[in-house]
């Protein structure tokens, strides 16, 4: 059989989402950002909301998210994406607005903005990439860095006496009445990717239904920053990150209702 006979639409088994732009990604091989970008692109296509989506990009490795997902974007200052999203969403209530933030951006410099946007119940989706480190600036400690974990600013491992404890910011977010759906997912296995996609879909639907803030944490790898192979980083994450940051829904309620027991 000739190649040209094979290349037919009916033989196509995989195609990239049309919402994902056809450009080279700058992410390191093995990085979780690419997978989450793909999930978002596919869902925006599936739900047919490309024309009403406005993304707010963070400062961090995902600063260039606007190069990869083919929607309108605004690039925020470091940590300020939830405030920018508030401005966009309040004045454009019919749009689908989401922020995409790392753990340094969201849990460190932007911890005030995220708390207050969630507390106000802004009708937005927050994607929170928790890779336990500052990837972009070369692997410094993040608030989420595990105890004992080596980073360039904790060269002998995170010491809780000096640097405090790994912050479970998603648990704090779940306490806020403004949030309606808060979940923690991962993308290190095919099954986890499918599950994560279902969660993000539900979260987007929540925003489209105007149910307040939906918050999806994705426990992620940064194999460059962790100085591991992509595969090694996935294993390390499963063994070390997931026991501290267990996966699953933290809250699934309508805005304003009390947190369900779990």
């Amino acid at each position, binding site marked *: 059989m000739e190649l040209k006979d094979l290349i037919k639409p009916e033989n196509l088994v995989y195609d990239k989402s049309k919402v994902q732009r056809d450009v080279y990604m700058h992410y390191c091989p093995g990085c979780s950002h690419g997978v989450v970008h793909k999930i978002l692109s596919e869902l925006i296509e599936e739900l047919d909301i490309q024309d009403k989506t406005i993304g707010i990009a963070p*400062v961090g490795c995902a*600063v260039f998210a606007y190069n990869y997902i083919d929607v309108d974007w605004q*690039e925020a*200052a*470091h*940590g300020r994406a939830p405030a920018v999203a508030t401005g966009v969403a309040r004045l454009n209530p019919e749009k689908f607005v989401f922020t995409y933030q790392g753990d*340094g951006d969201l849990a*460190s*410099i932007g*911890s005030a903005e995220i708390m207050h946007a969630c507390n106000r119940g802004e009708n937005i989706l927050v994607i929170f990439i928790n890779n336990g480190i*500052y990837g972009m*600036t*070369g692997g*410094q*400690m993040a*608030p989420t860095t595990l105890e004992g974990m080596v980073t*360039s*600013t*904790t*060269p*002998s491992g995170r010491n809780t006496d*000096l*640097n405090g404890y790994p912050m479970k910011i998603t648990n704090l977010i779940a306490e806020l009445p403004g949030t309606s759906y808060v979940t923690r997912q991962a993308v290190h296995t095919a099954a986890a990717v499918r599950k994560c996609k279902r969660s993000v879909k539900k979260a987007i639907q929540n925003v489209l239904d105007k149910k307040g803030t939906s918050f999806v944490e994705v426990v992620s790898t940064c194999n460059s920053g962790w100085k591991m192979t992509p595969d090694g980083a996935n294993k390390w994450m499963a063994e070390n990150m997931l026991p501290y940051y267990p996966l699953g829904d933290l809250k699934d309620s309508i805005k304003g209702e009390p947190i369900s027991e779990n």
Partner: protein
Amino acid sequence: MAEIRLMKGNEVLAEAAIRCGCDGYFGYPITPQSEVMETLMAREPWNETGMVVLQAESEVAAINMLYGAAGTGKKSMTSSSSPGISLMSEGLSYIAGAELPCLVVNVQRGGPGLGTIQPSQADYFQAVKGGGHGDYKLIVLAPSSVQEMNDFVDLGFELAFKYRNPAMILTDGALGQMMEKVELAEFKPRWTEEEIENKFGVWASTGKKTNRDRNVVTSLVMDSEEMEQNNLRFQEKYKKMEEEEVRYEAIQCEDADFIIVAFGTCSRVCLKSVELARAKGLKVGLLRPITLFPFPNKIIKELARKSKGFLSVEMSAGQMVEDIKLAVYEAGSTVRVNYYGRMGGIIPTPEEVVDALEDKFSWEISYGVKRSY
């Protein structure tokens, strides 16, 4: 014998801080200066001198930690790069208002906004004209070599404490990332609690003793009369700095027809431009301001009377050139002041600068006299 090492500008800032008896460093990672905190964390000075090093959750937090530490009379510093310094500007205004001595390092990158991580000098205005709100000044030091990155840490603290005023080392990504031979300073002990109480007990919040009134560190003065008096006192202080603390280097200016004015990385480039221009038969000199505030007005006024032109060379759209023009104007001179520069993280080449000089002063060069506006 003094210890000689090959070090990056950023690394030497950290080493110099430890050696000069600095008590505390607060910072937040940002390229191109993250090595400052990384070097400190690897050196673990808390084991050696007792110096505290803390990664803050943001630059806003870092500058307020600095406010607190400096308010107790401790030698404290932070470092960041342009976007982070913008965030610190609010805190800097409070620090200047409360008259707290401390050291802030800005390893500049190209802006505005997130811009680029490559070197720039576009924060000149922000550094010398204030940055935050209110009438205040920082003492601004502009190193041009890794050696000066080392030396100015101690000098910065010295001036900051002398005037009870924040000092800034205004440098850039090139000097931060560059390695050069550096002669490290000897270790100085940190001040003890008693020394601080004796030196600064009059103002620092070190704990009220029975023999003195309580000390309140604040920038708030509700009474306008009183606040005006405060402002007048600040202005006196800035004037004294202008009289006593100006530092500059004048290279081959004695016989020069044209004076290039440049600081930091640009001054290094222009040092070579002077060589190249002289080889072409052009009498060019270099004036290198070391303190950007206080600005070397006096020497510029002197040079204005005998030279045929000034060229300000900057990695910005032309900021320092305005201060040169002011000095030339105050000298009553009509000599022309031009600017040449690059932006966005590009460093001009020595050849480019000579071309610009020949181009902008072609009239003066061909007629051999100065041309008035």
